[in-house]
């Protein structure tokens, strides 16, 4: 029961699709930044859920756009653009997108070894944390004592990665079901 009009929504220009997902990511990003956190800079990273979903649904290039728009527009809206917070956030996003990109294109060559949402999410969270940590060390606090924190942060990243991976899997599931059933929200 597919009608042409709905099909048109599904085949809209890529930009439109990216903008929609980016808007979702930015909204989550802003909501999350308003929530208090036990350790400054340590966040669940729910906006990554969107990036992982886009990666699996539409590919790495789209995911990259969503990730970068999230960092850029998100920081402009919160007012942290070009501050250390922004630089940390950007380094984290770039690092996780690089890790995702390498894995994504490898798994295209070896489809049997392609990870799912959970694997990508854990990978992204770890790379994000490592990138952010490196930036924090080099630019903000180049003190050797900072390295004592790294194992804890990486453990936290693993937990967060699993959580957002499960959410992303559920999200992808919903989107794919809707696409198959032909309804859209």
């Amino acid at each position, binding site marked *: 029961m597919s009608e042409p009009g709905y099909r048109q929504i599904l085949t809209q220009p890529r930009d439109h699709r990216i903008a929609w997902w980016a808007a979702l990511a930015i909204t989550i990003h802003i909501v999350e930044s308003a929530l208090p956190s036990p350790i400054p800079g340590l966040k669940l990273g729910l906006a990554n859920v969107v990036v992982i979903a886009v990666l699996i649904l539409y590919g790495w*290039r789209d995911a990259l*756009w969503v990730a*970068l728009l999230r960092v850029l527009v998100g920081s402009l809206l919160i007012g942290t653009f070009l501050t250390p917070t922004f630089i940390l956030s950007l*380094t984290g996003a*770039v690092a996780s997108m690089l890790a995702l990109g390498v894995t994504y294109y490898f798994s295209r060559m070896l489809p049997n070894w392609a990870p799912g949402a959970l694997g990508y999410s854990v990978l992204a969270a770890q790379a994000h944390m490592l990138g952010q940590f490196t930036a924090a060390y080099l630019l903000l606090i180049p003190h050797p004592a900072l390295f004592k924190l790294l194992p804890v942060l990486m453990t936290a990243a693993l937990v967060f990665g699993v959580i957002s991976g499960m959410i992303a899997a559920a999200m992808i599931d919903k989107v794919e079901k809707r696409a198959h059933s032909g309804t859209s929200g």
Partner: protein
Amino acid sequence: MRCLLLLIVVVALSGCDRPSAHSHKQQMYVFGTLVEVIIWTEDEAAATEAMSQLSAQFQHQHQQWHPWEAGELHTFNQQLTTGKPTPTPDSIAPLLQRAIELSVASDGLFDPSLGQLVKLWGFSDNLVNVTQPPDATQLANFIKQAPHITDLEINNGLAQSHNPRLYLDFGGFAKGYAVDRAIETLRQMGFDNAIVNAGGDLRAIGSKGEWPWRIGIRNPRGEGLIASLQISRDESVFTSGDYERFYDYQGKRYHHIIDPRNGYPAEGFSSVTILHHDAATADAAATALLVAGPEQWREVAKKMGLSQVMVITPRGKISMSPAMVKRIRFEVSPEPNINVVDW
């Protein structure tokens, strides 16, 4: 999109490209000890240049100031022994001047005129061929007619000794004085962050980037460190101890810091640590307080203008001035009991 990505990577990594300052370290053997110079700078070539300049400066001083090896101090001593007025060489005059001031301030507990006594004990030549302390009567005779730095009369650059046994040996003090000169040289060359560590006695200036210099203080008994402290401006840390140079004879330890009052190695303290601005004062004071012992150390310290002092007895009892307590952090557990003295 590729360009954007590249731009982001470049922005993110640009922090790495700054030439960053780090420690340049060099060790040299001079004054019979291991001298280590650390310079915190980004200019490696200039640091290397400074190191070789300092090395040459130390070698030159060693040769000028050695009491028994051919050199200016040796010649000067020979001339003083004759009792006739003799011109003080330019290379020795400032060192001698400073030593006399400090000797007087220490009530003679630090005395650079006792070269003969040091030689009698065999501590003048790195303990080569020394196995036993000197004969007691020989020592008693020397002490009866012992020279004092006040026996040296200086008028218009002419020095005259009034005691034939007077023989200048600056000993460790030459090291402290040389550390001050080395810091001066480094500053002239534009280095404001450095450490000159002459065989464990050191002066540190500036800091290591944003962090202060961290100095460990070795445990006078046993291995490892007893305490640490931080220096972020300009300070010297000098320790005199009975464990630095010594020999054991018939179960008794004889160390190199001789009490000028009785001619025997000083007893009472196993180490004295001084924190003071200039290295020369810290050096002379560490020696003087080790000699002063538990009864007199506070009095002598105040007279020499010190405020940060730590003393440790052979049984491990630690006393400190109130100003020192604020600076010291113990590196042993459990933390030792310390006796904070009135100042």
